[in-house]
């Protein structure tokens, strides 16, 4: 109903908002006028019927009523189709004319009906334009002026002033209203503009974000390594297609999976699960490139914490690299070294044996010179054998085949054996080889005698090699309550500070020259370090140029037989 009325009152062509408002107002006035006119006609009719005899006034209504309705209709058409201002002006002029017939000229000019002239003044300010109130105040005054002349009274000057006063007030209020409406429209327009701009910005940002996200996803999807992102609770929240290729689980399967569920797969060896979980849960700083077997593939896994802008940990990102080919190559290399080393040993053993037999005169007497040559063959063969042994050990360590066999062994025997192996070598260089067993050292400990001996012999051999005069001191003693130590102290050249960092690396010697001078391929210390670490121990070096070096191996002290099923070694 309300909207129908609204439609009815609103002019069809709504271009100027003020014009529209005025035309609408005029429409309302016209409708009201029509209703009032119709009501007037009805009242007149009722009056005629009740009194039986029509008065002159009523007759006037009967005649003028329809004329007025026709006029209203005309103005309405004008208002709707052409101009609101013209229609309004005509409407108000009609009103002025109409007023003339509403009361006696005397009452109109200054009596009870004078107020009707205020109506066109106020309506003109609203309906046509604020300043039009003055025009209609003037027209009203003119009409009153002629009325007063026609009835022969003096003009109502006070009334004229009153009309102009009303005109001023109407002008001011209409102007204020229009100004306020105008300001409101400006504010609205600005707001609209701002909304449009903001919407544009948001849409641009959204597009950018979508493009950026798409680009990131494309990058993630084209990485050859598998990537899984876990949230703080260890639930996978993101993965890429490479992961699917590596662990044979689809992206949708992986996302939402808990860490434990992911690892609890028959593809993952039970022994690998613990270390993988440790890496991924705590993203342990010290583990990197963790090698695990996943189904048929060998994977190298790394993990890092993901932090947001405020350095808060929001999860872990794990990267899985296919290491299968590398692992195969490594395996081939190790197998190759093992075979070659093994095959080298047999003929070397034969050379050593024959040289020794020549020297020992098994095949008849030899002279001093021949004995010397035999010794030289033996020494060089021994050196070659050492290198082959080192290579074999290194290969075994790398292949993870080297096993530490914990059995009961006697430190005293270890030292005796070392002395047996190294004494001649030391005395040949006029070095004093001292072996010292601390009295508080338990007489029986649990360890791998073969590997312990290898550690001590390697370090002592190294010390003798790099010491030209003085002594090499091998010391075994308890260290604290839970550890024991092997110390090899020499009076050699010492190791430069910058070299201390890499002396335990494979195939390294302090400088290229000393390799030639001292022999070996630079594996001895590397093997020692790896053996010590396999025994959960630590090796440290202190050295002073010109004074000598001290190598200290610290190992956990185990005195009770923890693996009683392993028979005690017969070596002791």
């Amino acid at each position: 109903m309300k909207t129908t009325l609204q439609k009815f009152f609103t002019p069809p062509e709504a271009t100027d908002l003020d014009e529209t408002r005025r035309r609408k107002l005029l429409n309302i006035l016209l409708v009201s006028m029509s209703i009032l006119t119709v009501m007037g006609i009805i009242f007149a009719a009722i009056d005629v019927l009740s009194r039986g005899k029509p008065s002159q006034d009523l007759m006037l209504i009967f005649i003028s009523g329809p004329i007025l309705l026709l006029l209203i209709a005309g103005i309405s058409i004008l208002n709707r189709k052409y101009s609101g201002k013209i229609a309004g002006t005509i409407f108000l002029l009609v009103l002025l004319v109409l007023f003339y017939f509403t009361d006696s000229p005397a009452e109109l000019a200054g009596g009870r009906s004078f107020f009707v002239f205020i109506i066109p003044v106020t309506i003109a300010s609203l309906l046509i334009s604020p300043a039009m109130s003055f025009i209609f105040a003037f027209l009203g005054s003119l009409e009153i002026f002629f009325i007063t002349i026609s009835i022969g009274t003096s003009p109502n000057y006070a009334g004229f002033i009153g009309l102009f006063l009303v005109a001023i007030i109407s002008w001011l209020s209409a102007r204020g209203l229009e100004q306020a409406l105008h300001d409101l429209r400006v504010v609205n327009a600005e707001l609209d503009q701002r909304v449009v701009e903001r919407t544009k910005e948001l849409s641009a940002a959204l597009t950018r974000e979508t493009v950026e996200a798409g680009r990131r996803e494309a990058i993630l999807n084209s990485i050859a390594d598998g990537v899984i992102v876990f949230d703080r609770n260890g639930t996978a929240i993101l993965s890429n297609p490479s992961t699917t290729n590596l662990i044979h689980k689809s992206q949708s399967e992986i996302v939402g999976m808990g860490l434990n569920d992911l690892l609890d797969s028959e593809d993952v060896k039970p022994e690998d699960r613990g270390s993988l979980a440790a890496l991924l849960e705590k993203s342990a700083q010290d583990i990197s490139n963790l090698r695990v077997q996943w189904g048929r593939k060998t994977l190298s896994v790394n993990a890092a914490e993901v932090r947001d802008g405020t350095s808060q940990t929001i999860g872990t990102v794990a990267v899985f690299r296919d290491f299968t080919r590398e692992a195969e190559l490594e395996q081939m290399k190790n197998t190759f070294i093992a075979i070659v080393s093994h095959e080298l040993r047999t003929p070397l053993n034969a050379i050593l044996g024959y040289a020794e037999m020549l020297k020992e005169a098994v095949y008849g007497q030899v002279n001093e010179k021949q004995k010397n040559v035999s010794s030289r063959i033996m020494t060089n063969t021994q050196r070659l054998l050492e290198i082959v042994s080192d290579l074999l050990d290194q290969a075994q360590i790398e292949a993870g085949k080297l096993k530490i066999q914990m059995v009961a062994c006697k430190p005293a025997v270890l030292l005796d054996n070392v002395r047996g192996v190294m004494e001649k070598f030391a005395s040949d260089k006029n070095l004093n080889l001292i072996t010292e067993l601390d009295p508080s050292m338990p007489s029986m400990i649990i360890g791998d005698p073969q590997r312990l001996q290898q550690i001590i012999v390697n370090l002592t051999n190294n010390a003798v090699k790099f010491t030209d005069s003085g002594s090499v001191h091998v010391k075994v003693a308890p260290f604290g309550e839970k550890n024991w130590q092997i110390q090899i102290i020499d009076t050699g050249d010492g190791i430069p500070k910058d070299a201390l960092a890499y002396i335990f690396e494979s195939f390294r010697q302090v400088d290229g020259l000393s390799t030639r001078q001292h022999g070996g391929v630079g594996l001895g210390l590397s093997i020692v370090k790896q053996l010590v670490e396999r025994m959960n121990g630590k090796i440290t070096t202190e050295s002073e140029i010109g004074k000598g070096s001290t190598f200290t191996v610290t190992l956990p002290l185990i005195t009770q037989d923890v693996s009683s099923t392993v028979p005690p070694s017969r070596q002791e």
Partner: protein
Amino acid sequence: MSELALIIEDDEDLAEIFGQALKAADYTIEIIRDGLVAQERLGQVVPTVITLDMHIPHVSGKTLLDQIRADERLTKTRVVVATADAQLGEAMRGMADLVLIKPITFTQLRDLTFRLHQKK
């Protein structure tokens, strides 16, 4: 006649060296380079010392060692396992009298076996 030493070793040169070492340790030596021959010979003779290579043709060193340990006639026979494989050597320590990891030198074998000889 001096005591018998069996050298079960397939490498010709090592067999020669071990043979000479045992000869120098005052044993009568017999070199066998095949597992099947070794099995047969072990049923016929009672050696004082046997040097046993773990990798010989046809029969493994481990099988031979088991056979020796199961044979009542050979309870006094000392078995010296000679192997290049340190791991295997460690595993044999419980059954062998001596385990020598190759390279094994002439004097080493001579002196060790000479001591076994003297103990008897």
